[in-house]
C-alpha cells in the first residue's frame, strides 16, 4: 500500500475525539437516521396495507383511481420531499461544518 498520508494517525484520532467532530457526527446521524427510519416505516406501511388490507387500498375514490394508487403516488411525493430536504440541509448546515473540520486537519498535519 503506497499510502501517502496527509495527516498522521494521531491527528486522525485526535480529531475523531474532539468535541467538534463528535458534534458533526451527531449532527449527521441526527438527520439521516430518523429520515431513514421514517421512509422505511412509511414504505412498509404501504407494502403491508396493499397485501393485508386490499379492501381499503382497492376502494375507488374517483372513477378508477383507488386509495392504493394514491398511496403509491404519495410514496413518490415523500421520496422527492426527503431528497429535497436532505440536499438543502446538507448544503447549508452540514457541509460548512465538515469543511471547517477538514481544513483544521490539514493545518494540524503541517
Amino acid at each position, binding site marked *: 500500500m503506497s499510502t501517502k498520508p496527509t495527516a498522521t494517525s494521531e491527528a486522525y484520532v485526535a480529531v475523531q475525539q474532539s468535541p467538534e467532530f463528535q458534534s458533526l457526527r451527531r449532527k449527521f446521524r441526527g438527520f439521516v437516521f430518523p429520515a431513514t427510519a421514517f421512509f422505511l416505516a412509511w414504505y412498509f406501511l404501504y407494502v403491508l396495507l396493499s397485501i393485508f388490507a*386490499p379492501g381499503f387500498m382497492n376502494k375507488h375514490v374517483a372513477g378508477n383511481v383507488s386509495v392504493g394508487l394514491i398511496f403509491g403516488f404519495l410514496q413518490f411525493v415523500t421520496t422527492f420531499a426527503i431528497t429535497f430536504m436532505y440536499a438543502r440541509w446538507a448544503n447549508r448546515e452540514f457541509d460548512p461544518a465538515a469543511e471547517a473540520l477538514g481544513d483544521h486537519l490539514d493545518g494540524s498535519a503541517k
Partner: protein
Amino acid sequence: MTSLSTLATATTVGNPKLNIGIFLAFVVFTLAIVIRVASGKKTAEQYYTSAGAFSGRQNGIAIAGDYLSAASFLGIAGAIALTGLDGFLYSIGFLVAWLVALLLVAELMRNTGRFTMADVLSYRLRQRPVRIATAVSVMCVSLFYLLAQMAGAGGLVSLLLGVSGDTAQNIVIAIVGTVMVTYVLVGGMKGTTWVQIIKAILLIAGAFVMTVWVLGKYGFSLSGLFQGAVDTTSGSSVEKTSKAAEKLTTYGMKYGKDTTTKIDFISLSLALVLGTAGLPHVLQRFYTVPTSKQARKSVEWAIWLIGGFYLLTLVIGFGAAALVGPDRINAAPGKANAAAPLLAYELGGSTLLGIISGIAFATILAVVAGLTIAASATFAHDIYKEVIKNGQATGEQEVKVARIASMVIAVVAILGGMLAKSQNIAFLVALAFAVAASANLPTILYSLFWKGFNTRGALWSIYGGLISSIGLIIFSPVVSGKPGVPTKLADGTMANLSPSMITNPNIDFHWFPLDNPGLVSIPIGFLLGYVGSKLSKEFDAAKYAEMEVRSLTGHGVAEAINH
C-alpha cells in the same frame, strides 16, 4: 427451423429492415462517441472510474441510465399491463431504495473509496480476506443482473427483427454481448458513462412522448385510461380464466392469492428497497465524481429522473393494457417484456416501434456495459492486484487484466443469457437485488457506521448473506417445482411446462416456499455480521479514526489514497 411460421406472424409487427437500420444507427452513433471521448491508453483509475471526470449532474443522468434497465422499461411496463397495480409496486420499491443510497451510502463511500466497493469494506479490516469475499459477492450480483439484461435483449430484439426461433434469439444475445464488450474495451468508464448519459436522455424522452400520446387518446384522464385498460382486458381470453380486468386497477392480482404469495411479496419489497445501495455498478458510479458533494448531487438528480420515469411507465403499462391488450402481449415473443414495444407500434406504427426498440436496445447495452466494468474492476483491482500480486501490480497490468476479465464476463453473460431468456426480467433483477441486499449492504452499513465491526463480522456477513440468498433461490420454486401449465411451443405444438427455470414439471427439489429469498437472507446477513464481530477482538483504532474522519469530512479525497 421455425423461422417461416414466425416470420409470417412477425411481419405484422413493424418493419424488420427499418428496425435493424435504427439499431445500427444507434450502435454506430454511440460507438463514434465512445471512440471520440475515450479511446486510447488508460490508467487504471481512468478505466474503472474515469478518474472523477464527471459532474454531479452528468453522473446523476448516467446513474439513471445505468439503473433504468430493460427491467424497468420493458419488465415493469409489461407487469403493469398484465397485472395492473401489482407491477407498480416494483417501481416504488426501486425508487424508494435510492433514499438508502442518498442518506447512508453515496457520500461516505465517495469519501473513503477510490476504485471498488472493496476499497471501503477493507479500509479498516484485514485486506486479503475481505477483498476476496467482496469480489466474490460483487461478481455474483453482477452476474445475476447481467443475465436479466441479456435475457431482455433476446426477447426484445426477437420482437424487432421478427424472429422467435431459439437459434435466432441466441445469435441476437451473442451480438448484444459483443457490442457491449466493445464499448467497455474501447471506452472504459468514461466511454460507458457517455453511452449511459445519451441513453438516459433518449429513454426518458421516448417514454415521455409515449405517455403524452397515450394520455392524449384518453383526454388526459388517468381514470379514462384505466377504464380503457379494464375494457380491453375484460374482452380478452385471460378474462375467462381469471378475473383480470377487475383486478387491474387494484392490488393483489399477483400477490394476494394466499399467505405464501403475501409473504413472498414482503420479501420482494425488502429486497428491492435494500438492494439498490448494494449494487456494485451503482456504487461504482459514485467514484466517477470528484467529491462527496458531487456524489450527493448525482443521487439527487438520479432520484428526480428515476422517479419521473417510473411515473411514465405507469401510463405506458396501462396504455399497453388498453390499446394492445393481454392477448396480443402474451402471444408476442418475449410476452410481458413486449408490452411497451407493441404499444409503440400501436401508437406510431413501425417508425415509433423502431425508435422505442432502438432506445430499449441502447438501454440494455448501457446497463450491461456498466455491470461489466464494475465486475471487471473488482476482479482486476481486488483479486489480481491486491490479492494475487500483493498490491505490487502496475496500473498497466491492472488494466490489461480488467480487459481480459471483461471479455470473460461477456462470454459468461452471453451463455447465461441464452439459458435465461424466457424468464421475466423484472423478476430476475429482483433476485439480483436480494443477493445485493443480503451480502453487500449489511457490510457496507456496518463498516461505515459501526465501530465494533471487524474482519470476522465482514466475512460472516458477506459469505452468510451470499450463501443463504443463492442457496434459498436454488431450492425455491423459481428453480424447480412450479406446477406445469400447458404452453404453446415455438413450433406450434403444446407441452406441459413448469414456469420454473427447470421447465420439466416432474423435476422438483424445492423446499423453500418463497420466490424471493430476501426476507430470510437479509436478516441473516445482518445478524451474522453482528455475531461475527462480537466474537472477534480485532479493532484498529487508528484506521477506524482515519476512516470515520475521512468519511464525514471528505478529508484526503483529492489526494490519491491507495488502500
